[in-house]
């Protein structure tokens, strides 16, 4: 569904992505693994159109994303959950959740249905819907960041480091929610996550990245059973 072929991207003069090819199908969780600074977050940003200098082929369910502006890519159904959450702290929780649906011009019954669904995944957001986003705890902000991206019903979700700095109980809650999202909504997820055991446990497939390029691709279960590869690309066993 999301198909990235030979993606290149630059930060100024440095060639940070050197031909990344990734595929994510509907209802599938795919993990992007690699050491710090190999270009995992950059890959997500480049797909989202947040890097001005990029080339390669980007297709989503028949639409060509190459050359589109970020807001157009979002409207075609790419949801983005960035590192550090980046929720709108001055907007209320409800406004954070509504913004993606308002962009698509959804009427209030449709929005209400989507909100109910979001609250079913993350009941705590319902209690806090009148509060400013900035008053939420870290875990709640992460839930909001995911719910905000999911509310307008994207085809694909790009999630960057969702468990960073969160308590184990919250991580468990997020894991459950992400699993159910793919199963129930058929959303395809491209996940970047430091906690590789958690990530591989959730994923069907994984890509190993090094120096701005994909070095290995395979089923998640197979990778978990191949410590040599993980040691080579992640420096862990």
């Amino acid at each position: 569904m999301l198909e990235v072929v030979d993606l290149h991207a630059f930060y100024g003069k440095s060639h940070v992505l050197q031909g990344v090819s990734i595929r994510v199908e509907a209802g599938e969780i795919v993990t992007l693994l690699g050491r710090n600074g190999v270009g995992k977050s950059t890959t997500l940003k480049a797909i989202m159109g947040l890097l001005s200098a990029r080339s390669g082929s980007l297709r989503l369910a028949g639409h060509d994303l190459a050359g589109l502006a970020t807001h157009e890519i979002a409207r075609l159904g790419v949801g983005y959950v960035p590192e550090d959450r980046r929720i709108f702290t001055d907007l209320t929780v409800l406004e954070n959740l509504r913004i993606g649906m308002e962009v698509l011009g959804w009427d209030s019954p449709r929005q209400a249905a989507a909100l109910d669904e979001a609250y079913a995944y993350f009941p705590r957001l319902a209690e806090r819907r009148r509060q400013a986003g900035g008053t939420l705890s870290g875990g709640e902000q992460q839930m909001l960041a995911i719910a905000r991206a999911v509310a307008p019903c994207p085809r694909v979700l790009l999630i960057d480091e969702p468990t960073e700095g969160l308590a184990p109980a919250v991580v468990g809650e997020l894991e459950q929610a992400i699993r159910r999202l793919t199963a129930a909504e058929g959303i395809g997820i491209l996940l970047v996550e430091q906690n590789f055991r958690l990530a591989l446990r959730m994923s069907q497939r994984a890509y190993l990245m090094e120096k701005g390029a994909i070095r290995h691709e395979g089923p998640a279960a197979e990778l978990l059973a191949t410590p040599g590869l993980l040691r080579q690309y992640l420096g862990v066993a």
Partner: protein
Amino acid sequence: MERLAADLLIQLINGFTYGMILALVASGFTLVLGVLNIVNFAHGELYMLGAYVGWASALLLQNFWLAVGAAGLILLVLGMGLERVLIRPVRRRGPLDPLLLTFGLSLIFQQAALIVFGPIGKHVPMPIEVQLPFFRFGYPAYRLVVMLVALGLILGLWVFLRRSRYGMFIRATVQDREMAAAMGVPVPRLYMLVFGIGSGIAGVSGVLMSPLFGVYHTMGLDIIISSFIVVVVGGMGSLPGSIVAGLLIGELESLGSLFLKPIQAQILSLLMLLMVLAFRPQGLLGRRSLGG
């Protein structure tokens, strides 16, 4: 004694009127600054152009209030056009180019007004001639109306930012433009709209002020310095801050002119600016948000 009390009171009310106009001009300026991240040096000249358009429309339409609306609309469209045609291509090249561009525009607009309308100011008759009884003098009701209209427009802008769909997009964009775009907010269209709204507000302010001070090609310069001060003192991006600081600066300059020459009175507000920059650099009500 009674004379001084009357003067004080009149200047106090004058300060309110002037302060609300300052607040209105400043709120358009701060909106553009917050959303587009552009210091619009031509904001004062859009105020001046609005006044000329209002003056011409009033002659044509024979109705001052229709002229206010016409100038607002024309400046809205002009602002959107300026953003689309001139500012957008330059924006991507960093913050300095838009700054130079708007500064250049301000010079062009000023000279153009001088060439087209000449150096002699245009007189605009008071649209409301009623004088309110006040001590032994009359006080023009129009000044009070201006104050209320300006206040109403600022409140309207606040409601637009808080309650409307585009208001929500604007507040999100002010906070994190990348993330707003990643949520699908049409940022380029928003920039155009916001620059248009800022210009429209400047234009309306210019027309509202024209019966009090007349219309002349440098009128933008006179108001823009004070409204820069209002923006900084009130806190960039804060509409309530604009109102508070507008009234403060308006009163300072108005009451100050009882005892000092007007130019010396403006020194008072510069002093105020320095104090705020030294002790409360984020401004009196400053936060990086709009409508907060």
